[in-house]
């Protein structure tokens, strides 16, 4: 019992020590305004990593930290008070959760900076010989998608609705990259993802084109979060994303201009 008390005491001391340490660092990072945190949709992972490197080369004093995930997850985190400066969503609905009632709010109006089309992702060499959305309903095809709140989950359902295909997914994954992984690992046969994700998967997967009349154009908005402690750097990052060099980087990953 004494040991137990002692342990709790140690924890309390450790916690107190950490609390004391953190305050000076927090003020020092604010003083020169050199750090921002960007929360971005999972489908932007590779493009934004490269964009971040280019941005930091152009602005050596600024340090950018990224966190990627489902736009729905990220906006929940922001609205719960996660310290972040910029939010890039894969759809307008999740951006609305930031700017709408009960949201953490944006500084200024969100700007659309990229668009993306959807494709069916299949295993390397398309072993099931898929040709279009209708083949997803073929017996024995393991189809996975994302939860309905996640942008890709909603877009994928829109494609299926337009194509009048009824298919029950085997799983509702957390974000688009989880869908890609299930296919590249061979656990699932197909999923509907962004064209940029198929491209990013390289030779581990193949893409099947979804005809334009049933395809969906995903629009990506970006905004500075109202609670930012570093508005100049956050605005500079968004300016870079929408600038010619920023758009050129996005284009190499397969994103189109809005």
């Amino acid at each position, binding site marked *: 019992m004494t040991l137990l008390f002692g342990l709790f005491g140690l924890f309390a001391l450790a916690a107190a020590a950490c609390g004391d340490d953190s305050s000076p660092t927090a003020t020092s990072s604010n003083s020169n305004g050199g750090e921002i945190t960007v929360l971005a949709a999972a489908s932007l992972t590779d493009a934004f990593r490269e964009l971040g490197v280019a941005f930091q080369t152009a602005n050596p004093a600024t340090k950018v930290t990224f966190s990627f995930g489902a736009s729905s997850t990220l906006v929940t985190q922001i609205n719960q008070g996660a310290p972040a400066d910029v939010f890039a969503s894969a759809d307008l609905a999740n951006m609305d959760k930031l700017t709408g009632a009960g949201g953490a709010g944006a500084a200024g109006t969100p700007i659309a900076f990229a668009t993306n089309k959807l494709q069916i992702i299949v295993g390397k060499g398309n072993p099931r010989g898929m040709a279009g959305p209708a083949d997803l309903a073929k017996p024995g095809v393991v189809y996975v998608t994302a*939860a309905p*709140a996640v942008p890709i989950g909603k877009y994928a359902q829109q494609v299926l609705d337009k194509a009048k295909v009824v298919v029950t997914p*085997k799983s509702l994954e957390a974000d688009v990259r989880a869908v890609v992984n299930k296919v590249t690992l061979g656990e699932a046969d197909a999923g509907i993802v962004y064209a940029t994700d198929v491209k990013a998967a390289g030779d581990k997967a193949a893409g099947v084109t979804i005809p334009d009349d049933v395809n969906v154009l995903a629009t990506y908005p970006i905004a500075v979060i109202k609670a930012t402690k570093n508005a100049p750097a956050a605005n500079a990052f968004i300016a870079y994303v929408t600038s010619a060099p920023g758009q050129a980087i996005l284009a190499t990953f397969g994103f189109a201009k809005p």
Partner: protein
Amino acid sequence: MLVLAVVAIVFFALPFAGLLWRAPWRDAWSIVRSSDVRDALRLSIVCSLWSTGLSVLFGVPLACLLARVHFFGRAAVRALCTLSMVLPPVVGGVALFFALGRRGLVGQWLDRWFDIRLPFTMAGVVIAQTFVAMPFLVITVESALRQLDPRFEDAARTLGASRWYTFRRVTLPAIRPALIAGAVLAWARALGEFGATITFAGNFPRTTQTLPLVTYLKLESNPPEAIITSLAMMAVSFLVLVALRERWLGGITASASA
């Protein structure tokens, strides 16, 4: 000392108070009765009981082996069999993928020869839960066996009892409190299992979407429902822990102090 203990109690009580404070009590009943929450609850209970059963079936012999038989590499085997307890569950899920997935070390043969696929099935959930839960039973039962005076069993054997009879009538009653405690710990761990489940078994209502998964997803789409499902899990676990402590676990403290 008392102050620190109270701090610890507050530390544990505060998160629950937060949940209770935010809970939408008026809608609580309709949320619990909503189909996806009810399905998840049923699935959680069924799967966690299955994995508890499997943990007892395989864990008790394993504990006997580790406690009673001296063999080369026993320490390494014990570490291996309890590794999943300290491993991040997501890592466990990924490891299960490469072992039992459709392209996994063993999984590819299950798929090819028996047409058995574990990911995206209830069996996959049970396996993921058993993988993380069984060590809790093993270490509890093993330590009880180590404390058990082997002379009782020796006496039974010299009086002509068979190995099985001795185990059933001497060993088992002696370790009963530990066995129940271990089973409860394993069950609670299985009930709360999230990481390995969503990684290995995926997430789909009625087949693999357990209560923790539905809670996590609802947090994005419908936070009030997430609070209610959290409270439901908390209530079930709390009641079971209290009931067991009173009715069965008393034996442990009694034998420990004797």
